[in-house]
Protein backbone atom coordinates (compact mmCIF):
# COMPACT_ATOMS: atom_id res chain seq x y z
CA UNK A 1 0.00 0.00 0.00
CA UNK A 2 3.10 2.19 -0.24
CA UNK A 3 1.93 3.47 -3.55
CA UNK A 4 -1.09 5.10 -1.93
CA UNK A 5 0.48 6.46 1.26
CA UNK A 6 3.51 7.88 -0.55
CA UNK A 7 1.30 9.66 -3.08
CA UNK A 8 -1.53 10.72 -0.85
CA UNK A 9 -1.24 14.36 -2.00
CA UNK A 10 -1.38 13.28 -5.58
CA UNK A 11 -4.49 11.19 -4.96
CA UNK A 12 -6.11 14.04 -3.05
CA UNK A 13 -5.50 16.43 -5.94
CA UNK A 14 -6.97 13.93 -8.36
CA UNK A 15 -9.96 13.51 -6.10
CA UNK A 16 -10.50 17.28 -6.03
CA UNK A 17 -10.01 17.35 -9.79
CA UNK A 18 -12.76 14.76 -10.28
CA UNK A 19 -15.02 16.70 -7.92
CA UNK A 20 -14.37 19.91 -9.86
CA UNK A 21 -15.29 18.29 -13.17
CA UNK A 22 -18.42 16.90 -11.52
CA UNK A 23 -19.37 20.24 -10.02
CA UNK A 24 -19.11 22.15 -13.31
CA UNK A 25 -20.78 19.27 -15.08
CA UNK A 26 -23.64 19.25 -12.60
CA UNK A 27 -24.23 23.00 -12.87
CA UNK A 28 -24.03 22.94 -16.65
CA UNK A 29 -26.15 19.86 -17.21
CA UNK A 30 -28.82 20.93 -14.71
CA UNK A 31 -29.20 24.27 -16.51
CA UNK A 32 -29.13 22.76 -20.00
CA UNK A 33 -31.29 19.81 -18.94
CA UNK A 34 -33.91 22.16 -17.50
CA UNK A 35 -33.98 24.14 -20.74
CA UNK A 36 -34.41 20.96 -22.80
CA UNK A 37 -37.07 19.67 -20.40
CA UNK A 38 -38.94 22.97 -20.74
CA UNK A 39 -38.85 22.50 -24.50
CA UNK A 40 -40.08 18.93 -24.21
CA UNK A 41 -43.17 19.80 -22.19
CA UNK A 42 -43.92 23.15 -23.80
CA UNK A 43 -47.18 23.69 -25.71
CA UNK A 44 -45.19 24.74 -28.77
CA UNK A 45 -44.88 21.80 -31.16
CA UNK A 46 -41.52 22.70 -32.81
CA UNK A 47 -39.90 23.13 -29.40
CA UNK A 48 -41.26 19.75 -28.32
CA UNK A 49 -39.82 18.09 -31.42
CA UNK A 50 -36.48 19.77 -30.79
CA UNK A 51 -36.42 18.47 -27.21
CA UNK A 52 -37.41 14.97 -28.27
CA UNK A 53 -34.78 14.88 -31.01
CA UNK A 54 -32.08 16.09 -28.61
CA UNK A 55 -32.91 13.43 -26.03
CA UNK A 56 -33.31 10.59 -28.54
CA UNK A 57 -30.05 11.29 -30.32
CA UNK A 58 -27.95 11.82 -27.22
CA UNK A 59 -29.39 9.03 -25.12
CA UNK A 60 -28.70 6.46 -27.81
CA UNK A 61 -25.19 7.66 -28.54
CA UNK A 62 -22.31 6.41 -26.37
CA UNK A 63 -20.68 9.13 -24.26
CA UNK A 64 -17.36 8.27 -25.85
CA UNK A 65 -18.71 9.09 -29.31
CA UNK A 66 -19.92 12.50 -28.09
CA UNK A 67 -16.52 13.04 -26.51
CA UNK A 68 -14.64 12.09 -29.69
CA UNK A 69 -16.92 14.36 -31.74
CA UNK A 70 -15.97 17.29 -29.55
CA UNK A 71 -12.29 16.50 -29.23
CA UNK A 72 -11.55 15.44 -32.82
CA UNK A 73 -14.45 16.99 -34.73
CA UNK A 74 -14.47 20.56 -33.45
CA UNK A 75 -10.81 21.32 -34.21
CA UNK A 76 -11.59 20.43 -37.84
CA UNK A 77 -13.94 23.38 -38.08
CA UNK A 78 -11.54 25.71 -36.35
CA UNK A 79 -12.84 25.44 -32.80
CA UNK A 80 -9.83 24.84 -30.62
CA UNK A 81 -9.76 24.37 -26.89
CA UNK A 82 -8.14 22.38 -24.14
CA UNK A 83 -9.19 18.70 -23.89
CA UNK A 84 -10.46 19.63 -20.44
CA UNK A 85 -12.96 22.08 -21.92
CA UNK A 86 -13.99 19.65 -24.66
CA UNK A 87 -14.40 16.88 -22.09
CA UNK A 88 -16.48 19.07 -19.82
CA UNK A 89 -18.65 20.29 -22.70
CA UNK A 90 -19.27 16.71 -23.88
CA UNK A 91 -20.12 15.66 -20.32
CA UNK A 92 -22.62 18.52 -19.96
CA UNK A 93 -24.29 17.86 -23.32
CA UNK A 94 -24.49 14.13 -22.68
CA UNK A 95 -25.82 14.42 -19.11
CA UNK A 96 -28.35 17.11 -20.05
CA UNK A 97 -30.43 14.52 -21.93
CA UNK A 98 -30.69 12.34 -18.83
CA UNK A 99 -31.40 15.31 -16.55
CA UNK A 100 -34.19 16.30 -18.93
CA UNK A 101 -35.75 12.86 -18.73
CA UNK A 102 -35.50 12.88 -14.93
CA UNK A 103 -37.28 16.23 -14.70
CA UNK A 104 -39.89 15.20 -17.23
CA UNK A 105 -40.67 12.00 -15.34
CA UNK A 106 -41.30 14.20 -12.30
CA UNK A 107 -43.73 16.41 -14.21
CA UNK A 108 -45.47 13.39 -15.71
CA UNK A 109 -45.95 11.85 -12.30
CA UNK A 110 -48.19 14.75 -11.19
CA UNK A 111 -51.71 13.68 -12.02
CA UNK A 112 -53.82 15.97 -14.17
CA UNK A 113 -56.39 16.07 -11.37
CA UNK A 114 -54.02 18.21 -9.30
CA UNK A 115 -53.97 20.96 -11.91
CA UNK A 116 -57.69 20.59 -12.52
CA UNK A 117 -58.41 20.95 -8.80
CA UNK A 118 -56.18 24.03 -8.72
CA UNK A 119 -58.04 25.59 -11.62
CA UNK A 120 -61.36 24.65 -10.04
CA UNK A 121 -60.57 26.64 -6.91
CA UNK A 122 -59.72 29.59 -9.12
CA UNK A 123 -55.90 29.64 -9.12
CA UNK A 124 -54.34 31.34 -12.13
CA UNK A 125 -51.99 29.54 -14.53
CA UNK A 126 -48.89 30.87 -12.75
CA UNK A 127 -50.26 29.95 -9.33
CA UNK A 128 -51.16 26.46 -10.51
CA UNK A 129 -47.70 25.96 -11.88
CA UNK A 130 -45.67 27.42 -9.02
CA UNK A 131 -47.76 26.29 -6.07
CA UNK A 132 -49.30 22.99 -7.13
CA UNK A 133 -47.56 21.31 -10.04
CA UNK A 134 -43.87 22.21 -9.89
CA UNK A 135 -43.37 21.60 -6.13
CA UNK A 136 -44.68 18.05 -6.54
CA UNK A 137 -42.77 17.55 -9.78
CA UNK A 138 -39.47 18.65 -8.24
CA UNK A 139 -39.89 16.33 -5.28
CA UNK A 140 -40.46 13.36 -7.55
CA UNK A 141 -37.56 14.42 -9.78
CA UNK A 142 -35.00 14.42 -6.98
CA UNK A 143 -34.23 10.67 -6.98
CA UNK A 144 -33.84 10.24 -10.77
CA UNK A 145 -31.89 13.48 -11.23
CA UNK A 146 -29.74 12.57 -8.22
CA UNK A 147 -28.78 9.24 -9.72
CA UNK A 148 -28.05 10.98 -13.02
CA UNK A 149 -25.59 13.26 -11.23
CA UNK A 150 -23.94 10.29 -9.49
CA UNK A 151 -23.66 8.57 -12.86
CA UNK A 152 -22.12 11.76 -14.22
CA UNK A 153 -19.47 11.65 -11.51
CA UNK A 154 -18.65 8.16 -12.71
CA UNK A 155 -18.59 9.34 -16.32
CA UNK A 156 -16.06 12.00 -15.37
CA UNK A 157 -13.60 9.08 -15.22
CA UNK A 158 -14.06 8.69 -18.98
CA UNK A 159 -13.06 12.33 -19.42
CA UNK A 160 -9.98 11.53 -17.34
CA UNK A 161 -9.23 8.39 -19.33
CA UNK A 162 -9.27 10.58 -22.40
CA UNK A 163 -6.17 12.32 -21.12
CA UNK A 164 -7.33 15.39 -19.29
CA UNK A 165 -4.78 14.92 -16.56
CA UNK A 166 -6.49 16.53 -13.64
CA UNK A 167 -8.65 13.84 -12.11
CA UNK A 168 -8.50 10.56 -10.18
CA UNK A 169 -8.28 8.42 -13.28
CA UNK A 170 -5.30 10.38 -14.55
CA UNK A 171 -3.60 9.87 -11.18
CA UNK A 172 -3.91 6.12 -11.62
CA UNK A 173 -2.69 6.36 -15.19
CA UNK A 174 0.38 8.44 -14.43
CA UNK A 175 1.39 6.47 -11.32
CA UNK A 176 1.18 3.11 -13.08
CA UNK A 177 2.41 4.05 -16.54
CA UNK A 178 4.90 6.85 -16.00
CA UNK A 179 6.15 6.10 -12.49
CA UNK A 180 6.04 2.34 -12.71
CA UNK A 181 4.03 1.56 -9.59
CA UNK A 182 2.21 -1.77 -9.47
CA UNK A 183 -1.32 -1.41 -10.83
CA UNK A 184 -3.18 -3.26 -8.08
CA UNK A 185 -2.53 -0.88 -5.14
CA UNK A 186 -2.74 2.28 -7.25
CA UNK A 187 -5.99 1.35 -8.97
CA UNK A 188 -7.43 0.19 -5.65
CA UNK A 189 -6.67 3.67 -4.37
CA UNK A 190 -8.37 5.21 -7.39
CA UNK A 191 -11.39 2.94 -6.89
CA UNK A 192 -11.60 3.95 -3.23
CA UNK A 193 -11.54 7.58 -4.32
CA UNK A 194 -14.62 7.06 -6.50
CA UNK A 195 -16.38 4.98 -3.86
CA UNK A 196 -15.79 7.77 -1.31
CA UNK A 197 -18.22 9.85 -3.34
CA UNK A 198 -20.59 7.36 -4.92
CA UNK A 199 -21.35 5.25 -1.83
CA UNK A 200 -22.31 8.11 0.54
CA UNK A 201 -24.08 9.89 -2.30
CA UNK A 202 -26.08 6.76 -3.10
CA UNK A 203 -26.99 6.23 0.57
CA UNK A 204 -27.89 9.90 1.00
CA UNK A 205 -30.04 9.76 -2.09
CA UNK A 206 -31.84 6.70 -0.72
CA UNK A 207 -32.62 8.54 2.52
CA UNK A 208 -33.72 11.63 0.61
CA UNK A 209 -35.86 9.48 -1.65
CA UNK A 210 -37.81 8.04 1.29
CA UNK A 211 -38.09 11.50 2.79
CA UNK A 212 -39.50 13.23 -0.25
CA UNK A 213 -41.63 10.29 -1.38
CA UNK A 214 -45.25 11.29 -1.88
CA UNK A 215 -47.87 8.63 -1.35
CA UNK A 216 -50.06 8.70 -4.41
Amino acid at each position, binding site marked *: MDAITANLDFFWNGFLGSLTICLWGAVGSLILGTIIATCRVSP*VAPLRSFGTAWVTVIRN*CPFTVVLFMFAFGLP*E*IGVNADYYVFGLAALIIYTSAFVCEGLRSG*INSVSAGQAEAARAIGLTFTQTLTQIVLPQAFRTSIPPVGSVII*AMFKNSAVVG*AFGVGRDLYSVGESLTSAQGYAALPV*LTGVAIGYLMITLPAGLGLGVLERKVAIAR
Partner: protein
Amino acid sequence: MSNASVLYDAPGPRARRKAAIIGVIATLVVLMLLGLVVRRLADQGQFAGKLWGPVLDPSNENFPLVWNLLAKGVVATLTAAVLAIGFSLIIGSVVGVARMMLGHWARLPVVAGIELFRGLPVVITIYFASRVLPELGVDLSGMPGGSGLWFLVIGLTAYNCVIIAEIIRAGVVSLPSGQREAGLAIGLSPGASMRLILLPQAIRVMLPALISQIVVILKDTSLAAVLGLYTELLRQGNLIALNLDNPIQILSVVAVIFILINYSLSRLATWVDQRSVRKTPPKRVAPVPAEVG
Protein backbone atom coordinates in the same frame (compact mmCIF):
# COMPACT_ATOMS: atom_id res chain seq x y z
CA MET B 1 -50.59 16.50 -25.86
CA SER B 2 -51.32 13.90 -23.25
CA ASN B 3 -47.73 14.06 -22.07
CA ALA B 4 -48.08 17.57 -20.70
CA SER B 5 -51.74 17.91 -19.90
CA VAL B 6 -51.06 18.66 -16.25
CA LEU B 7 -49.16 21.82 -17.12
CA TYR B 8 -51.77 23.56 -19.22
CA ASP B 9 -55.36 23.29 -20.27
CA ALA B 10 -56.53 22.50 -23.76
CA PRO B 11 -55.63 25.73 -25.59
CA GLY B 12 -58.32 28.15 -26.77
CA PRO B 13 -58.09 30.26 -29.92
CA ARG B 14 -55.87 32.92 -28.33
CA ALA B 15 -53.47 30.42 -26.79
CA ARG B 16 -53.35 28.52 -30.05
CA ARG B 17 -52.47 31.69 -31.92
CA LYS B 18 -49.77 32.51 -29.38
CA ALA B 19 -48.37 28.97 -29.57
CA ALA B 20 -48.31 29.18 -33.35
CA ILE B 21 -46.40 32.47 -33.26
CA ILE B 22 -43.88 31.17 -30.71
CA GLY B 23 -43.65 27.99 -32.76
CA VAL B 24 -42.69 29.90 -35.87
CA ILE B 25 -40.13 31.97 -33.97
CA ALA B 26 -38.68 28.86 -32.29
CA THR B 27 -38.43 27.05 -35.60
CA LEU B 28 -36.66 30.06 -37.11
CA VAL B 29 -34.21 30.23 -34.20
CA VAL B 30 -33.43 26.51 -34.39
CA LEU B 31 -33.06 26.71 -38.18
CA MET B 32 -30.82 29.74 -37.80
CA LEU B 33 -28.58 27.92 -35.31
CA LEU B 34 -28.47 24.90 -37.62
CA GLY B 35 -27.70 27.24 -40.49
CA LEU B 36 -24.79 28.73 -38.56
CA VAL B 37 -23.40 25.24 -37.93
CA VAL B 38 -23.86 24.24 -41.56
CA ARG B 39 -22.27 27.47 -42.72
CA ARG B 40 -19.33 26.95 -40.43
CA LEU B 41 -18.96 23.39 -41.74
CA ALA B 42 -19.18 24.65 -45.31
CA ASP B 43 -16.69 27.46 -44.70
CA GLN B 44 -14.21 24.95 -43.38
CA GLY B 45 -14.77 22.75 -46.42
CA GLN B 46 -16.38 19.95 -44.45
CA PHE B 47 -18.85 19.14 -47.22
CA ALA B 48 -16.09 18.47 -49.72
CA GLY B 49 -16.49 15.27 -51.69
CA LYS B 50 -13.00 14.27 -50.67
CA LEU B 51 -14.16 13.99 -47.05
CA TRP B 52 -17.60 12.46 -47.58
CA GLY B 53 -16.75 10.36 -50.62
CA PRO B 54 -15.22 7.44 -48.74
CA VAL B 55 -18.43 6.96 -46.71
CA LEU B 56 -21.16 8.00 -49.16
CA ASP B 57 -19.97 7.55 -52.72
CA PRO B 58 -19.82 3.90 -53.86
CA SER B 59 -17.57 4.81 -56.75
CA ASN B 60 -14.94 6.26 -54.40
CA GLU B 61 -11.78 4.19 -54.27
CA ASN B 62 -11.86 4.03 -50.46
CA PHE B 63 -15.60 3.29 -50.15
CA PRO B 64 -15.42 -0.54 -50.07
CA LEU B 65 -12.46 -0.49 -47.70
CA VAL B 66 -14.04 2.00 -45.29
CA TRP B 67 -17.33 0.14 -45.09
CA ASN B 68 -15.54 -3.17 -44.79
CA LEU B 69 -13.64 -1.84 -41.79
CA LEU B 70 -16.77 -0.29 -40.30
CA ALA B 71 -18.61 -3.59 -40.70
CA LYS B 72 -15.75 -5.31 -38.90
CA GLY B 73 -16.10 -2.70 -36.17
CA VAL B 74 -19.82 -3.36 -35.84
CA VAL B 75 -19.17 -7.09 -35.59
CA ALA B 76 -16.48 -6.48 -32.96
CA THR B 77 -18.78 -4.20 -30.96
CA LEU B 78 -21.61 -6.71 -31.11
CA THR B 79 -19.28 -9.57 -30.15
CA ALA B 80 -18.11 -7.73 -27.05
CA ALA B 81 -21.65 -6.62 -26.21
CA VAL B 82 -23.17 -10.10 -26.61
CA LEU B 83 -20.46 -11.70 -24.49
CA ALA B 84 -20.75 -9.05 -21.77
CA ILE B 85 -24.56 -9.21 -21.82
CA GLY B 86 -24.56 -13.02 -21.65
CA PHE B 87 -22.14 -13.18 -18.75
CA SER B 88 -23.86 -10.29 -16.94
CA LEU B 89 -27.26 -11.96 -17.22
CA ILE B 90 -26.00 -15.33 -15.98
CA ILE B 91 -23.81 -14.01 -13.15
CA GLY B 92 -26.32 -11.28 -12.33
CA SER B 93 -29.15 -13.79 -11.89
CA VAL B 94 -26.98 -15.92 -9.61
CA VAL B 95 -25.90 -12.89 -7.56
CA GLY B 96 -29.45 -11.56 -7.35
CA VAL B 97 -30.83 -14.90 -6.21
CA ALA B 98 -27.96 -15.27 -3.74
CA ARG B 99 -28.78 -11.88 -2.26
CA MET B 100 -32.42 -12.89 -1.79
CA MET B 101 -31.98 -16.47 -0.61
CA LEU B 102 -28.89 -16.50 1.59
CA GLY B 103 -29.19 -16.12 5.36
CA HIS B 104 -28.57 -12.84 7.09
CA TRP B 105 -24.81 -13.21 7.63
CA ALA B 106 -24.03 -15.10 4.45
CA ARG B 107 -25.75 -12.34 2.53
CA LEU B 108 -23.49 -9.59 3.82
CA PRO B 109 -20.54 -10.19 1.47
CA VAL B 110 -22.92 -10.35 -1.49
CA VAL B 111 -24.55 -7.05 -0.53
CA ALA B 112 -21.12 -5.49 0.04
CA GLY B 113 -19.93 -6.72 -3.36
CA ILE B 114 -23.00 -5.36 -5.09
CA GLU B 115 -22.70 -1.93 -3.47
CA LEU B 116 -18.99 -1.83 -4.20
CA PHE B 117 -19.22 -2.55 -7.91
CA ARG B 118 -22.26 -0.34 -8.36
CA GLY B 119 -20.27 2.60 -7.05
CA LEU B 120 -17.39 2.22 -9.49
CA PRO B 121 -17.21 3.83 -12.92
CA VAL B 122 -17.27 1.16 -15.67
CA VAL B 123 -14.18 2.65 -17.24
CA ILE B 124 -12.36 1.95 -13.95
CA THR B 125 -13.46 -1.69 -13.81
CA ILE B 126 -12.32 -2.19 -17.41
CA TYR B 127 -9.04 -0.39 -16.76
CA PHE B 128 -8.61 -2.41 -13.57
CA ALA B 129 -9.13 -5.66 -15.47
CA SER B 130 -6.71 -4.67 -18.22
CA ARG B 131 -3.92 -3.59 -15.86
CA VAL B 132 -4.29 -5.73 -12.76
CA LEU B 133 -5.10 -9.12 -14.30
CA PRO B 134 -1.85 -9.31 -16.32
CA GLU B 135 0.02 -8.24 -13.19
CA LEU B 136 -1.53 -11.13 -11.30
CA GLY B 137 -0.33 -13.50 -13.99
CA VAL B 138 -3.62 -13.98 -15.78
CA ASP B 139 -2.79 -14.48 -19.43
CA LEU B 140 -5.73 -14.05 -21.77
CA SER B 141 -3.80 -13.53 -24.98
CA GLY B 142 -4.54 -17.10 -26.04
CA MET B 143 -8.29 -16.55 -25.87
CA PRO B 144 -10.20 -16.12 -29.14
CA GLY B 145 -10.49 -12.44 -30.01
CA GLY B 146 -7.37 -11.43 -28.09
CA SER B 147 -6.85 -10.26 -24.53
CA GLY B 148 -8.30 -6.77 -25.14
CA LEU B 149 -11.74 -8.18 -25.88
CA TRP B 150 -11.72 -10.25 -22.72
CA PHE B 151 -10.50 -7.45 -20.49
CA LEU B 152 -13.35 -5.35 -21.87
CA VAL B 153 -15.86 -8.16 -21.33
CA ILE B 154 -14.62 -8.82 -17.78
CA GLY B 155 -14.73 -5.14 -16.86
CA LEU B 156 -18.21 -4.67 -18.33
CA THR B 157 -19.48 -7.84 -16.67
CA ALA B 158 -18.08 -6.90 -13.25
CA TYR B 159 -20.14 -3.71 -13.28
CA ASN B 160 -23.25 -4.81 -15.11
CA CYS B 161 -23.83 -8.14 -13.38
CA VAL B 162 -24.54 -6.36 -10.09
CA ILE B 163 -26.88 -3.91 -11.81
CA ILE B 164 -28.74 -6.84 -13.37
CA ALA B 165 -28.80 -8.60 -9.99
CA GLU B 166 -30.50 -5.52 -8.54
CA ILE B 167 -32.98 -5.32 -11.43
CA ILE B 168 -33.94 -8.97 -10.94
CA ARG B 169 -34.26 -8.47 -7.19
CA ALA B 170 -36.49 -5.43 -7.75
CA GLY B 171 -38.64 -7.61 -10.00
CA VAL B 172 -38.99 -10.37 -7.41
CA VAL B 173 -39.72 -7.87 -4.63
CA SER B 174 -42.47 -6.35 -6.77
CA LEU B 175 -44.35 -9.66 -6.93
CA PRO B 176 -47.12 -10.29 -4.38
CA SER B 177 -45.80 -12.41 -1.48
CA GLY B 178 -48.62 -14.88 -2.15
CA GLN B 179 -46.68 -16.14 -5.17
CA ARG B 180 -43.83 -17.46 -3.06
CA GLU B 181 -46.17 -18.69 -0.33
CA ALA B 182 -48.32 -20.58 -2.82
CA GLY B 183 -45.18 -22.25 -4.17
CA LEU B 184 -44.15 -23.31 -0.69
CA ALA B 185 -47.70 -24.46 0.11
CA ILE B 186 -47.77 -26.90 -2.79
CA GLY B 187 -44.56 -28.41 -1.48
CA LEU B 188 -41.87 -26.69 -3.55
CA SER B 189 -38.57 -25.98 -1.83
CA PRO B 190 -37.66 -22.27 -1.48
CA GLY B 191 -35.14 -22.75 -4.29
CA ALA B 192 -37.64 -24.38 -6.61
CA SER B 193 -40.24 -21.76 -5.83
CA MET B 194 -37.71 -19.06 -6.72
CA ARG B 195 -36.67 -20.80 -9.92
CA LEU B 196 -40.07 -21.95 -11.15
CA ILE B 197 -42.43 -19.26 -9.86
CA LEU B 198 -40.71 -16.02 -8.90
CA LEU B 199 -37.85 -15.62 -11.40
CA PRO B 200 -39.90 -16.15 -14.58
CA GLN B 201 -42.40 -13.53 -13.47
CA ALA B 202 -39.70 -11.15 -12.22
CA ILE B 203 -37.85 -11.33 -15.52
CA ARG B 204 -41.05 -10.58 -17.40
CA VAL B 205 -41.86 -7.59 -15.19
CA MET B 206 -38.33 -6.28 -15.51
CA LEU B 207 -37.83 -6.96 -19.22
CA PRO B 208 -37.95 -3.25 -20.19
CA ALA B 209 -35.37 -2.40 -17.52
CA LEU B 210 -33.19 -5.30 -18.64
CA ILE B 211 -33.33 -4.15 -22.25
CA SER B 212 -32.39 -0.61 -21.18
CA GLN B 213 -29.39 -2.05 -19.37
CA ILE B 214 -28.46 -3.97 -22.51
CA VAL B 215 -28.42 -0.63 -24.35
CA VAL B 216 -26.08 0.71 -21.67
CA ILE B 217 -23.75 -2.29 -22.08
CA LEU B 218 -23.72 -1.82 -25.84
CA LYS B 219 -22.84 1.85 -25.43
CA ASP B 220 -20.16 1.08 -22.89
CA THR B 221 -18.29 -1.26 -25.22
CA SER B 222 -17.04 1.91 -26.89
CA LEU B 223 -15.01 2.69 -23.76
CA ALA B 224 -12.47 0.27 -25.20
CA ALA B 225 -11.68 2.98 -27.75
CA VAL B 226 -10.68 5.43 -25.02
CA LEU B 227 -8.49 2.84 -23.35
CA GLY B 228 -7.14 1.61 -26.69
CA LEU B 229 -7.92 -1.98 -25.69
CA TYR B 230 -9.90 -3.44 -28.51
CA THR B 231 -10.74 -2.38 -32.04
CA GLU B 232 -14.50 -2.06 -31.86
CA LEU B 233 -16.65 0.30 -33.94
CA LEU B 234 -15.51 3.61 -32.43
CA ARG B 235 -11.80 2.75 -32.44
CA GLN B 236 -12.12 1.37 -35.95
CA GLY B 237 -13.77 4.64 -37.00
CA ASN B 238 -11.06 6.62 -35.30
CA LEU B 239 -8.33 4.71 -37.10
CA ILE B 240 -10.06 5.31 -40.45
CA ALA B 241 -10.42 9.01 -39.63
CA LEU B 242 -6.71 9.23 -38.84
CA ASN B 243 -5.88 7.82 -42.27
CA LEU B 244 -8.40 9.79 -44.31
CA ASP B 245 -8.28 12.90 -42.12
CA ASN B 246 -12.09 13.19 -41.93
CA PRO B 247 -13.05 12.70 -38.25
CA ILE B 248 -16.36 14.61 -38.49
CA GLN B 249 -17.64 12.47 -41.34
CA ILE B 250 -16.53 9.11 -39.96
CA LEU B 251 -17.63 9.88 -36.40
CA SER B 252 -21.05 10.94 -37.72
CA VAL B 253 -21.42 7.57 -39.43
CA VAL B 254 -20.31 5.78 -36.25
CA ALA B 255 -22.78 7.80 -34.21
CA VAL B 256 -25.62 7.03 -36.62
CA ILE B 257 -24.85 3.29 -36.46
CA PHE B 258 -24.87 3.36 -32.65
CA ILE B 259 -28.06 5.41 -32.54
CA LEU B 260 -29.85 3.09 -34.99
CA ILE B 261 -28.97 -0.03 -32.99
CA ASN B 262 -29.75 1.51 -29.60
CA TYR B 263 -32.90 3.26 -30.74
CA SER B 264 -34.33 0.00 -32.06
CA LEU B 265 -33.50 -1.65 -28.74
CA SER B 266 -35.16 1.22 -26.82
CA ARG B 267 -38.24 0.89 -29.01
CA LEU B 268 -38.26 -2.82 -28.27
CA ALA B 269 -38.18 -2.02 -24.54
CA THR B 270 -41.13 0.37 -24.88
CA TRP B 271 -43.03 -2.15 -26.99
CA VAL B 272 -42.44 -4.95 -24.48
CA ASP B 273 -43.47 -2.63 -21.68
CA GLN B 274 -46.76 -1.71 -23.35
CA ARG B 275 -47.46 -5.25 -24.45
CA SER B 276 -46.84 -7.06 -21.20
CA VAL B 277 -50.24 -7.56 -19.62
CA ARG B 278 -49.46 -8.68 -16.14
CA LYS B 279 -51.73 -11.37 -14.80
CA THR B 280 -50.68 -10.54 -11.25
CA PRO B 281 -50.20 -6.80 -10.95
CA PRO B 282 -47.06 -6.06 -8.94
CA LYS B 283 -47.43 -4.36 -5.55
CA ARG B 284 -44.93 -1.77 -6.54
CA VAL B 285 -41.99 -1.81 -8.85
CA ALA B 286 -39.00 -0.70 -6.85
CA PRO B 287 -36.96 2.02 -8.53
CA VAL B 288 -34.42 0.56 -10.90
CA PRO B 289 -30.94 2.05 -11.02
CA ALA B 290 -31.08 4.83 -13.61
CA GLU B 291 -29.87 3.69 -17.00
CA VAL B 292 -27.18 6.24 -17.52
CA GLY B 293 -24.26 5.07 -19.65
